């Protein structure tokens, strides 16, 4: 599993901790001096992080190499690369997409988190990339559209299809999501692409998530 959008590593770390890669107590030092857990994943510091990230657009290429290497050596392993919607403007994404289709990397799955939040606002307003479905299809990928990335049944069905359905090409899941979903003051904003919560607001946020429809 690789992350084109490495800034979502804060969502990966608790999963890795729960899977036993490192103690959950490490999570409390997130981004503090000498912590292995930074804003972006570092494969040399974080057990379970399959590749370092942080520079947008790199990791689909890395995943092409991983998928090709696994195939060459007869491994049944599969590679999933999670990308951002803003990341779709990087030329390297499409260089990687071309090569994955050319080499028929059916062990590679792309996952695009289309959450509408980028540094300068909604990526579609900054630089439109839609219709992504047509773009990925024309680059030779099987496209699976996940209309609501917050509906767990839909999400499992789409990922299951992408990972387990037989095909002779790579597959991409276009996951439509809402940034900050479930937190009243974050939902659907770009302002919380980056931010920090003081103790009071942290409590408020936990409450909203726990009482809400998700998680």
């Amino acid at each position, binding site marked *: 599993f690789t992350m084109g959008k490495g800034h979502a590593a804060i969502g990966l770390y608790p999963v890795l901790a729960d899977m036993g890669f490192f103690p959950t107590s490490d999570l409390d030092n997130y981004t503090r001096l000498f912590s292995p857990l930074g804003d972006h994943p570092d494969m040399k510091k974080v057990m379970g992080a399959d590749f370092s990230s942080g520079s947008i657009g790199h990791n689909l290429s890395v995943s092409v190499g991983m998928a090709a290497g696994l195939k060459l050596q007869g491994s049944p392993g599969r590679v999933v690369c999670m990308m951002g919607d803003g990341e779709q403007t990087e030329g390297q994404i499409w260089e990687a997409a071309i090569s994955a289709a050319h080499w028929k990397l059916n062990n590679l799955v792309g996952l695009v988190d289309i959450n509408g939040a*980028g*540094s300068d606002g909604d990526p579609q307003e900054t630089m439109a990339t839609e219709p992504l479905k047509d773009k990925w299809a024309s680059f030779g990928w099987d496209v699976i559209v996940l209309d609501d990335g917050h509906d767990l049944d839909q999400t499992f069905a789409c990922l299951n299809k992408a990972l387990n359905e037989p095909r002779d090409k790579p597959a991409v899941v276009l996951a439509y999501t809402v940034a900050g979903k479930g937190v009243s003051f974050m939902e659907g904003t*770009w302002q919380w692409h980056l931010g920090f919560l003081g103790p009071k607001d942290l409590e408020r946020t936990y409450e909203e998530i726990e009482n809400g429809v998700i998680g």
Partner: protein
Amino acid sequence: MSKPYMSAELREKIDLTDTTVTEDFDDASWDMVTALALSQQLTTGKTLLDLADAGNDKIVVCTADLGRPTQVVNFGRKYPDRYFNFGIAERNMIGAAAGLATTGLIPIISNYSFFLALMGVENIRNDICYTDLPVKMVGTHSGIAMGFYGTSHHCNEEIGALRAMANLTLMAPCDGNAIRSALTNHIDHPHPIYFRCGRGREAVIYDEPPSFEIGGSNQLRDGDDISILAIGNLVKAALDARDILAKNGIGARIVDMYSINPIDKDAIRRAAGDHKLIVTAEEHNVTGGFGSAVADVIAEEGLGAKLVKIGMPDQYSVLGPPTHLYAHYGLDGEGVAKRVKEALA
């Protein structure tokens, strides 16, 4: 109680129009808008707005989804047809800036330094420097200013790469007034220039726009015993170190060597002539950085001074908040003073 993120006084002064942080929020909470409001020294957008308002209709601004973080978004609001936000597509942006320059416009690229100078190094060389086009590049958040964002967002190598590029002038404005001088003085320079800047939270060194000439430097303080030649954030660290050293009876000359290439050779000759010890200070790998440029001059001219290069060691930084990293790597007043005392011991 949590610690306020910013003073009430500052909160009054800054533009928080777009923030979602309202009065019922915790004082310690912040979103992107409030965080960016602290970057008061990133004056690129303000300066370019002033130049455009004064009649310069050649200015076009380019960014790659970093108009807000590098503070040029207001230029785009006022002059939307002269503002090109390419999305996260740096190499496309650099090539297009070169193309814009061929039509007689003055493109200014404003972007994080690691995505501009490191990711785009070959495009900068082939499209802008080899072609000798008057593109002005403002690389912000250089060095380890991005702190816990980690190595992907640090930029300790670009001086080495950019110094080696023919036709390119490389300068480092150390605060907001220096950025203002840099852009105002050189907007019509007919060749490419790269301005290496910080994250905008630098200490104010200049109360008004300083002298900022290609191949120049600004001596800020004189001293009898040593010279500290500094760039960027380390100018403030050098000034702080000078105060500490003064208590130990050591007098330090402090020079802001903002022009990295070409470099002010006279300032280095004067330092070597007056002092046995020259200290260079930069937020960059000491291998191939500003200190190496000073070393070239000392060696080539046979100047008889010992050189101590302060900067990032030749390794990738640990993670942490920026100020914690500066202290850890000795890139603050105390760190610089300590290295000077060790060298003199």
